[in-house]
């Protein structure tokens, strides 16, 4: 009798954690949290490879790299969420001067695919001078206050940057790039990705296909070179007269304010090419070449603009 009672209680407990407990409209959210810190020394680099990951990178004064990684599974059945969570693997380790952080799905041979909704979250806090290489696949990343070298490769991922300085190399495919207060040597290669940059300084080299590029306020700009295909390019700056321009639109239009004195080098149906040289001896240079797209120069961004 005692055994029967134990069996009944176990069966009820199992049922309570299983489908019977899957109340209508409720999900079980199981989070595996990992905390680890690494001592930082000059020459170290953090290398992140996220899948479906929300990555936040911040800085602090301590000579230490702190990592909090969360792996999350959501499913109406608790047992399914727990089992699927274990299929999501992680790596957080240092190999010589590189700190590798990674999450991925790895199911054993013959094992069923995960049924849960899975995601990862990273909160990484490190010294500003620590170089970072971030790869994200179907994720979102937010990076702030880095001051040395930042490399990003995103696919189907959005990257947001705030006050990032130094050597910045961004590559994106089917993602969006948003940067504010960036400075240094910036190189961007974007395929089917929109780019929005605000308050930028330094030198920029941008290659883009199938995207919309918006540059807002570029007072500290030294050099901007955009080469784009099937993209529209917007440049908003109240001091457009201070820049030197060489703009080329093949199968596209060049739009600019009336008081900007443009010198047309070509003005045919298929090719528009204009040049502007300011009176001062030294000026920032902006070169934009676009094929199958338009160029817009405006002093202010429209009040109803979403960006």
């Amino acid at each position, binding site marked *: 009798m005692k055994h029967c009672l134990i069996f009944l209680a176990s069966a009820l407990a199992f049922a309570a954690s299983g489908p019977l407990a899957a109340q209508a*409209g*409720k*999900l*079980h*959210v*199981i*989070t*595996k*949290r*990992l*905390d*680890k*810190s*690494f*001592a*930082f*020394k000059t020459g170290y680099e953090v290398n992140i490879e996220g*899948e*479906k990951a929300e990555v936040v990178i911040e800085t602090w004064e301590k*000579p*230490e790299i702190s990592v909090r990684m969360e792996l999350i599974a*959501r499913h*109406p059945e*608790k047992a399914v969420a727990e089992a699927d969570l274990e299929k999501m693997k992680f790596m*957080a380790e*240092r190999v010589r001067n590189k700190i590798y952080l990674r999450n991925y*799905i790895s199911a054993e041979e013959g094992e069923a*695919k*995960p*049924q*849960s*909704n*899975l*995601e990862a979250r990273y909160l990484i806090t490190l010294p500003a001078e620590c170089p970072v290489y971030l790869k994200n*696949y*179907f994720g*979102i990343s937010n990076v702030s206050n880095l001051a040395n070298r930042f490399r990003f490769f995103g696919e*189907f991922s959005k990257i947001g940057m705030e006050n990032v300085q130094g050597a910045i190399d961004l590559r994106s495919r*089917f993602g969006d790039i948003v940067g504010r207060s960036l400075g240094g040597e910036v190189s961007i290669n974007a395929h*089917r990705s929109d780019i929005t940059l605000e308050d930028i300084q330094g030198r920029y080299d941008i290659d883009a296909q*199938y995207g919309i590029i918006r540059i807002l306020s570029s007072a500290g700009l030294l050099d901007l070179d955009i080469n784009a295909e099937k993209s529209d390019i917007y440049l908003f700056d109240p001091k457009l007269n201070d820049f030197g321009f060489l703009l080329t639109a093949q199968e596209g239009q060049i739009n600019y304010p009336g008081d900007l004195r443009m010198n047309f080098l070509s003005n045919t149906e298929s090719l528009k090419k204009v040049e502007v040289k300011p009176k001062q001896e030294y000026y920032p240079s902006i070169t934009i070449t676009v094929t199958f797209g338009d160029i817009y120069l405006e002093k202010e961004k429209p009040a109803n603009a979403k960006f």
Partner: protein
Amino acid sequence: MRSNEANHETLEEAVRQLPSYAPPPEVWANIEQALEIMTLERPLHEAIGQLPAYRPPAHLWAAIEAGLAAEPAHRPGRMRALRWASAAAAVLLLMAYFLRPTPDSQLKLSYIRETADAPAQGLYHNDWDADEASLQQLAEQYSKDPVAKQQPEYSSILAEWQDLNDAKAEVVSFMERYGKDGQIIRQLAEIERERSALARQMAIQI
């Protein structure tokens, strides 16, 4: 020689058919050289075995020990150098201790179990493949259309179509592994909008 093997001839035939291997010539040269050395050294080993054994007198060890104990007093310069070297080593060890990176912390693992509201039923329902057959048919027709082939953007439209098809397949495959959510379905919707725009462009040119 004959054996008791029942199918002796078959066995012999099989043995004959086995592949034969010859060792590289240097193997024999090495074996000969080793044998020659063994022959030459044999008298030497025999003579060593016949040598008499002697034990030193017991007082000899006491004298050696006394000599070792007295030696530092006779060599003050060497002792001083040894002390300096020890001090320098201690300083270096201390510096290494203080300059070493703080050891990386151990991984801490914890679990959090919560519940959350599920998305409305049917919200993530697959409707993105509903027009797939028509779209593929249209693209097929466009790719074969003689008038469309004359258009300057013919190749780039087909390349773009392929690019978007690949992207859609990538999103769907990823969704099968990580599940559906609002973000990923929005990405799929964006690709579908671009595919639709391209399909409209193809339709006009047919």
